């Protein structure tokens, strides 16, 4: 079975799908914001007569609204795949690994984990090995210096009996290499924050853009051939207006790239999608 979708693109229009809180970093950031808000709410209940506290309560509700806002993201996905496992991968396993040999960037561990989680949640029958556990299990053969760059290198790895035994033990069927990163493309604006006896606050406006560019290369480990490439390019602009309290309007650029790549890989690997 050969399936080719060379150059097939799905241009997702801006603001039609902006899953909030997908990027791990943003999750942490937003969680922190939510925690701050709930603490302020608690203070309001105890000291409801304080004018200063009432002011903060208003600000808190504003920041909740801000957290619920999301910036706009546009995504382009290209896919070219072959020899799709139409019956699924059975009890075999898959590993998703990031490329980290480039001098100026590393593919983020969180991004790889995000794709793995997407596939696991989409089809619970697919065993996706944890990246760091896999790299440690096969140390030192998947370090940036030693990781196989071409499918022909798999054979060299398998010539070492302990390595071959380990691969047989984990029943690895697909090795998926993800190369790319998310960068900040532009930023502008200014914000001033101050602290005084009567409280704290910020005033100003900031905006910044992010671009994610990732390519997943699928290797059939048994046949030692490349069976597909999927790339995802996403861009988005985030905003942070501040009138007393900053209101982040975050574009989930990396999260959208994760969802896009994860979904295409899930469709490739799963018999149910």
């Amino acid at each position, binding site marked *: 079975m050969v399936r080719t979708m060379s150059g097939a693109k799905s241009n997702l229009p801006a603001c039609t799908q902006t899953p909030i809180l997908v990027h791990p*970093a943003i999750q*942490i*950031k937003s969680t922190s914001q939510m925690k701050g808000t709930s603490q302020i709410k608690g203070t309001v209940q105890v000291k409801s007569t304080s004018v200063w506290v009432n002011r903060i309560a208003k600000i808190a509700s504003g920041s909740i609204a801000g957290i619920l806002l999301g910036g706009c993201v546009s995504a382009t996905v290209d896919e070219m795949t072959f020899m799709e496992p139409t019956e699924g991968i059975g009890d075999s396993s898959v590993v998703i690994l990031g490329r980290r040999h480039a001098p*100026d*960037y*590393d593919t*983020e561990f969180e991004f790889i984990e995000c794709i793995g989680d997407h596939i696991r949640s989409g089809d619970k029958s697919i065993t996706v090995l944890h990246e760091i556990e896999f790299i*440690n*299990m*096969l*140390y*030192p*053969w998947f*370090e*940036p*210096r*030693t990781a196989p760059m071409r499918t022909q290198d798999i054979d060299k790895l398998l010539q*070492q*009996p*302990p*390595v071959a035994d*380990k691969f047989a033990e984990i029943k690895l069927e697909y090795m998926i290499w993800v190369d790319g990163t998310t960068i900040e493309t532009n930023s502008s604006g200014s914000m001033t924050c101050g*602290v005084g*006896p009567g409280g704290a606050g910020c005033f100003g406006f900031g905006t910044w853009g992010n671009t994610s560019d990732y390519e997943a290369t699928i290797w059939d480990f048994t046949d030692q051939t490349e069976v597909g490439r999927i790339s995802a390019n996403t861009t988005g602009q985030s905003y942070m207006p501040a009138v007393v309290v900053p209101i982040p309007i975050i574009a989930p650029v990396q999260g959208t790239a994760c969802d896009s790549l994860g979904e295409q890989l899930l469709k490739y690997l799963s018999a149910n999608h």
Partner: protein
Amino acid sequence: MKWSSAVIVAMALSACGSKQVIVQGNFPTPIIEKHSKTLAVVYTDEFANHEFFDQAAGRKESDWLVKTGDAQVQFWDTLLTGMFDQVVHIRSHDDLHEHEDSIDAVIIPYVVDLQYTIPTHTNVKIYEIWMRYRFRLVTLDAIHDHDNGDLSYDPETSFADWQLTAYGKTPTAFLQSDEEAVNLAAIVALRDAGANFVTSFERVNEVKAWLDGRGVERYEKGKK
């Protein structure tokens, strides 16, 4: 007000203080076919307590002290144990005589150089550590013990002497301090050193000859 003043002063002082990293991490055992040899390891005091100090170049920068000694010993113990049938440590006169009949060779590692960069230095959002190692292999009879318990050896008696480099980098990350990032870069560098050591070990001619049982030529020439 007193508290807020104290906090502001503390923040101002911490901005240009000294930063210290004691490298800590867990290292995996290598998955390779073990060599059927018994290897002894001598960690010199300089190696086991290795640290790197860099004085701040300006008021905006910080002094840096990076202590890698404990992590070095932990890492090389794990790596060598995974590479050889048996690994023993030679720390004293007693160790030397206890294992004198079983040891095939003694390895002595050195950290020759360590350099680091942080985003403040380069304006690139990457923390980097670069290390250069030197390894010497000697036979057991090249190690001498003294009346005071110290051990010594003549570097000229080594039958294999080679160097390798290691590099580790880690990008900036949300909620990650400079110290955490430098620690992570050091761990990546140590792992890279191991990967380089494993893949280049048998390419050193003298090592290859020793592993193949073809003798330890340079040392024997030295004896003559």
